């Protein structure tokens, strides 16, 4: 049996966790869930996840804080941010802050599951080297 990619889903809404888990489960992923940032961070520490789908707004510890912590602890899980209504700016801010491995963000109420799946797969494959070179070539040198 080939290596099963692990996904961690962090959200305080049980139904979201249910739907997402079932969806990825069906498609051959190993899925674990956490109900808040703190729980999510603990799971990240205990085992290796290729991708984490993280809700931004949660009690106890929110998504941004969890990602920040994971970053400082050197956890290299790729992150996908889920946002609620009107939290787009927060997600963009998170990406702009330079948190490594924040691959994408999706607005929950307007989500397309195929796009999410494609993004997860893309992150699992890693960025193609040509794309990295192309991005580097257009960036100003001083940056």
């Amino acid at each position, binding site marked *: 049996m080939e290596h099963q990619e692990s996904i961690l889903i962090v959200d305080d809404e049980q*139904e979201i966790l249910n*739907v997402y888990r079932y969806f990825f489960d*069906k498609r051959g992923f190993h899925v674990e869930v956490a109900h808040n940032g703190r729980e999510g961070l603990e799971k990240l520490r205990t085992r290796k996840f290729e991708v984490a789908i993280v809700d931004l707004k*949660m*009690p106890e510890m929110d998504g941004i804080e969890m990602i920040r912590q994971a970053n400082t602890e050197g956890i290299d899980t790729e992150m996908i941010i889920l946002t*609620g209504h009107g939290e787009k700016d927060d997600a963009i801010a998170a990406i702009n802050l330079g948190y490594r491995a924040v691959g994408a963000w999706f607005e*929950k*109420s307007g989500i397309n599951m195929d796009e999410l799946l494609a993004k997860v797969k893309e992150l699992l494959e890693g960025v193609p080297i040509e794309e990295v070179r192309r991005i580097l070539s257009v960036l100003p040198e001083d940056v």
Partner: protein
Amino acid sequence: MNTQFDALREQAEHYEKQKKYVQALMLYKTIPDLPEYDENMKQIICDKICNIGDELLKETKGIPIKTQRVKHFWGLQRRKKFLARRSFKKAANTFKIHIPPGYKKLLKVYEKALKIDPSYPPGYKKVLKVYEEALKIDPYYSQAVYQIAYTYLHLKDYQEAARWFRDYCDVAEQSEYASALRKICDIGDIFYKQQKKITKAIRTYKKILEIVPEYEKTFSIESPIYFETPDQGIEPEYVRAFEALGTIYFDAGDYENASDIYIRYCELEQYNNEAALHRLIEICDKYYQKKEYRHSIELYERIIRSIREGRGDIHSEYYKDFLFSLANFYYESNEYDNKKAITLYLEIFKNCAEILREFEKEEICTRLENIYSEIAERAQYAKLSLLKSELVEQRAELEQARQLAYLGTMATAVAHEINQPVGIIRAATDAALLDLQDDLLQIEELGPLLRRIWKQTERLHTIIENFRKFARGDRTTREDVNLNQLVEQTASLFSEQLTHHHIALRLQLYQEPPAPLVFANRFQLEEALINVLSNARDAVEGRENAAIWLTTWCDPHKDCGFVVEDNGPGLSAEYRKHLFMPFMSTKSTEQGTGLGLYLARKIIQDFGGALCHEDRSGGGARFIVRFPIEKE
């Protein structure tokens, strides 16, 4: 031949040729004073003077004569006629030339007849006839005119008598003239007092007002040298006529004519007649009582104009009084004219400074001050009403802003609230569709999927229903509102939003019976709570361990209510002072309207409650809403 006489005569004749009769007469008049004057000269001068009289009379001819009576003879160009009569009379008196005596004899016969039977009217008629005949011979036979007039008086034909007396005034000597005037006045009195014939009385008295100025004009202007000057002072009958006429008009309520008469009367005596002045003031008062302010103002204006034109003394007490009254009218009447009032008050100061008494000065100063302040007030009022309307507009705008802000608050809360169920439905359906596409969907999954979706729509329904209730709720009717329910419901609206802002919301509800009930309108109370809650949210947002506590309590013997606490920075001393004032806000204008706490308190007060603030122990603010429990 005496050269002096010749020289005088020569000069007089020269004047005569030049038709300078007055000068000629004047010279002839000096002749009798000459020492060499004799009968011969007398005859010559008498002829000369009579000639001049004839010449003067000729000048009056050519004007139509209406009747045979003497009146028409010289009811013509009065001035010339008068001069002619005078010159003739003078000459006649001076040289003892008399009217032909034949008629006198005739008269005497009739007069004797009258003495036998004074009440015999045909006798009077005969007397009248004789005199009329006499007048045909000598139009200047003043005695005849007088007798005719007197006869009519006897006959009680007062109208005719007055007419003849009026004519007599034209021919009479000065002393007789006065008695004729008196007779006319008497007739006026008879008409007015005995017969109550106002129109006839007025007509009669008015004759006097015509005669006197004419008479005086003739004497004082036309013949200053030749004739003896009339007595200085006003003819008493003239005054009497004014008084009588004024009284008639005044008593009849004809204030227009009355004031006209009294002004002329006042002018006649240079406004020195106190009774007349008093009457004018009385008329003004009458107008004032009748609320005919325009009339009293016009009358005062007329009086003042007359005085200013020199008919009165502008440095007098009465002038000041008139000015003062007029100014007061301007000041007080409905036809309010501040500008005119000011001008007059100032004029009183200027022209009447020396007679202005101290208290009046003060009074005028007060008046002026009042006017000025009134003007200022009016300006202020105009400005104020402008401000008021601006304020109303501002208020309307703010109310709108408040509603928008409120709706915004609610919309944000609702949006947060619906985000989760929509996200779940979206993910579930999208996943199912993808499963279908990838051939991963099992038929037995359908049931749980639909149940999941239904459950979320139920959640959405509740949110929408709550919002709808609140947004469209009836805000007038009152009911028993359970504060626990209120706080829970409002908290549920905010919970998602507060979570979003990392604010912990902790409810501590009073669970013992009785439940905290307040007789109020649910939605208004909810709005008040939302306002206080929003305030707390804004205070703690972005702070570490931000938390809000919502507590309810009930003391069945005293009061019940709820408390909203936060662990924010608390309130600054400056803000605390104006906490519940409208438009006081520590927030930027985009964030708040500054009406939240003000409106919350207003709502709570409307329901008999109180909203107050204190510091929370451990930092932050504590807002207490307290409703007294009414004991039955």
